């Protein structure tokens, strides 16, 4: 399964080479052009039957992870976070470091060595280290370099009722959706597919890509929070697994284009594709940068709900992913030739 390959590859923000190469191999046979810009965004152009509005479909390749910042004499490795990770989820996780994928374990003092008061506190990242089994600093430095990226090792598996578990589902699921779309044929208009870098550290790739492409409109495909779990009251769920792709009205980075959102809703209804509105106005996506590029770009966001994002393992519903592909597909097939006006289309 494509999503398995994508989920299990490494691509922490700024170190997207591996995931970019995989995506490039996947899409190259199906697109007219594929190039990597200076920041590392993979920009491909899909030929349609004719030229319409300049559209970019955007999804970020990078994942949250960690980076090597130092070595102890003992050979243990100090690290920092890249992107938003809760310190409390780090301890005892198995990770891989650098291009050689050196395996290691995030260590901390074992329970029987902790004082009673220590057991009550969560361990801070400053008190953690990665153990790669090296006996000395010199030995560790032979295998791992300062600045090497670190990602979780999590096996991707299909589980339960149409669900899958894995790491980096935010946003390898978006990559999977866009790759599927790029493999299809016969869209009425040409469009750009953009796999961006550095979203998790501040949506940095997307702005540069949009500046280059000068799009008339943009659709961002994301993996977003689903908080439909026991401790959260219904009004805090944000999105729900299995209820279809989520459309964003507003988040902390963007107010999406009303006409595009109305259009997506209408298409979903006409084609029997389930959808939900993202019920939260926090967090941000690449759309925040794209919408404010140059003279402004009408933008919308469609997301696959994922539980436990920014964690070593998350869960999504594969039907939501399939329905997201369907929604993006009908969007491309029905795109109005003149794009969208200011007032929306309702």
């Amino acid at each position, binding site marked *: 399964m494509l999503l398995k390959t994508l989920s299990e590859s490494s691509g922490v923000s700024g170190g997207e080479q591996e995931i970019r190469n995989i995506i490039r191999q996947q899409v190259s046979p199906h697109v007219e052009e594929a190039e990597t810009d200076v920041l590392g965004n993979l920009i491909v152009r899909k030929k349609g039957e004719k030229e319409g509005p300049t559209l970019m479909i955007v999804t970020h390749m990078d994942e949250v992870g960690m980076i090597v910042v130092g070595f102890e004499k003992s050979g243990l490795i100090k690290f920092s976070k890249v992107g938003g990770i809760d310190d409390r989820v780090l301890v005892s996780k198995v990770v891989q470091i650098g291009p050689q994928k050196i395996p290691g374990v995030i260590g901390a003092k074992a329970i029987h060595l902790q004082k009673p008061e220590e057991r009550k506190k969560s361990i801070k990242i400053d008190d953690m280290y990665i153990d790669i089994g090296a006996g000395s600093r010199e030995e560790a430095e032979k295998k791992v370099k300062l600045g090497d990226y670190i990602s979780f090792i999590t096996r991707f598996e299909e589980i339960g009722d149409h669900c899958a578990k894995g790491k980096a589902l935010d946003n390898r699921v978006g990559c999977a959706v866009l790759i599927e779309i790029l493999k299809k044929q016969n869209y009425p208009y040409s469009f750009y597919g953009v796999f961006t870098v550095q979203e998790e550290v501040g949506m940095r790739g997307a702005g540069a890509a949009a500046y280059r492409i000068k799009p008339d409109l943009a659709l961002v495909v994301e993996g977003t929070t689903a908080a439909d779990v026991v401790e959260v009251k*219904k*009004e*805090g*769920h944000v999105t729900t697994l299995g209820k279809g792709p989520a459309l964003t*009205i*507003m988040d902390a980075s963007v*107010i999406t*284009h*009303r006409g595009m959102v109305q259009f997506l809703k209408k298409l979903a209804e006409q084609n029997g594709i389930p959808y939900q*509105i993202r*019920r*939260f*106005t*926090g967090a941000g996506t690449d759309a925040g940068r794209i*919408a*404010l*590029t*140059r*003279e*402004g*770009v*009408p933008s919308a966001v469609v997301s696959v709900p994922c539980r436990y994002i920014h964690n070593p393992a998350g869960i999504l519903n594969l039907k939501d992913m399939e329905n997201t592909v369907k929604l993006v597909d009908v969007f491309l097939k029905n795109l109005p030739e003149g794009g969208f006006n*200011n*007032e929306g289309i309702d």
Partner: protein
Amino acid sequence: MKELIKELTEAYGPSGREETVRKVIEDKIKPMVDKMEVDSLGNLIARKKGPGKRVMLAAHMDELGLMVTYIDKNGFLRFSNVGGISPHILLGERVVFANGAVGTIGCEKIESMKDLNFQKLYIDIGASEQKEAEDQVKIGDIAVYQRGFQDLGRRIISKSLDDRVGCAVLIQALKEIESPVNDLFFVFTVQEEVGVRGARTSAYRIKPDYGLAVDVTRTGDTPESETMAVALGKGPTVKVKDTLIITHPKVKKIMVDAAERTGIPYQLEVLERGGTDSGAIHLSREGVPSGVMSIPCRYIHTPSEMVDYDDVINGVKLLKSILETPLD
């Protein structure tokens, strides 16, 4: 101008949903401008041609709002804020949606006011079940304060004087300037309250030589208020600095000279927290010398903001005087 301010402040227009207030402005300024257009984000850009430098004037159309995020089985609406609203001022407040649906804000049981946050609040639109609520309001709809314009004589209370009073100052100046010496772009911007977004894209489009935002600023003239050397009734302000901009010295000088030349009272303003559209304009492309003229305003971001009408009138005068300056 009070009628104009009343009409503008009472119009519905939270960030991202500015079309109603934009329509009001379009109708008013259409006969007076050379060209008018709406860009992809919804900014209204009106040009009044003159021989001199390209000057971008910005007043934002959008106001604060509450976006519906969830409708429960009993028809109560949960929401989050659009722009900087404090949950404390919402208790007992009434709000209205674009379609006219009205609700009041209720609060769950809390032990202490310290526990108050948006998660504890809900909007009650009088529906008794989910379906009945959904017939009137959908997830993603935005409510605004339902508070009308109140004329107190010298002073005015209304919702969204931030920044409809700025829009009114721009419209009035546009009316009174017949043959401008500079090439004027009056921009009524969107999405200022969520991060000066409309000003950023419109400045890119216009490529101005100078930028000037007209907005409101807070005052330090109320009981036990935070220190700030701005008071109601002492004139519009010439901004020196806020969180997003240090006013370009050339622009500051142009503004101060314009006030002193015409004997208009003004105040110098240093705002310690907050920013305006000029924060985005001055960083557009290669940089744009920019400043801000503010109308002093009490109780900003509450349903009852207050300005002094003399400051508004003097604001129009000062703006005209600034724009009459030949710029190089």
